[in-house]
């Protein structure tokens, strides 16, 4: 992990990729990450975001219902007391496009956010936290969906 991060930060081309992916901290509005938002599956999203496979962590507090009456609106929330977390990304494993959103936190806000997502079917939902120095942690929960909410 350490070696890879060193390699990544040394490589200008990769650094540019990370910058384009909007993962590096303290960035003003970057271009919308099309590749990440069109990727299908957790691994593809992580690859498009330029981050390595995250470690599960109890320090990421992830709230989601066990069952969603309708997949069109699923309330979720993530927060953490860990210092240095700059971004939280929400991924819905089985969605046609897995990445729902990425939130970027300045020092002026708490590292916590609640939002509502769409889920096409019962799936694992992940809250992936990325720190300023490239550590990636996650928490996940399976949410059962009784009626899918993505298409007609």
């Amino acid at each position, binding site marked *: 992990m350490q070696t890879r991060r060193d390699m990544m930060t040394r490589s200008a081309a990769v650094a540019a990729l990370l910058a384009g992916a909007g993962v590096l901290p303290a960035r003003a509005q970057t271009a919308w*990450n099309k590749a990440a938002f069109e990727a299908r599956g957790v691994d593809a999203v992580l690859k498009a975001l330029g981050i390595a496979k995250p470690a599960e962590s109890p320090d990421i507090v992830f709230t989601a219902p066990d069952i969603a009456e309708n997949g*069109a609106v699923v*309330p979720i929330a993530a927060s953490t007391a860990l210092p240095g977390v700059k971004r939280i990304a929400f991924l*819905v494993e089985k969605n046609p*496009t897995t990445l729902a959103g990425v939130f*970027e936190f300045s020092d*002026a*806000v708490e590292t916590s956010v*609640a*939002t509502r997502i769409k889920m096409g079917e019962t799936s694992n939902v992940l809250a992936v936290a990325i720190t300023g120095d490239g550590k990636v942690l996650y928490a996940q929960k399976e949410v059962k969906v009784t009626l899918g909410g993505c298409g007609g």
Partner: protein
Amino acid sequence: MSDPMRIRAQVQGSGAIVRVLMSHEMETGLRKDAAGKTVPAWHITEVTAALNGKTVLSAQWGTAIAKNPFTQFVVKGAKAGDKITISWVDNHGDKRSDEATIA
């Protein structure tokens, strides 16, 4: 012309809880209309929240954020009278910005 957002910002301790309801279709691009034609994707792509003009939170959204999105976050070191501004841009290039005063 989009409808105004509903922003509620309330002091809590030394900060403020901000709750935002946006009016937006958030079409996935997967849905078919009654005639069988696919309804094109139409969704918010970027969101920013500013406290007294300074960006404190930003986000990039895809099609899997729910229609009429609701977002809640907590601003540190905010007091009654401070201004919260929420802005969004969608994939059509439409924008919207609304402001609320922390109560």
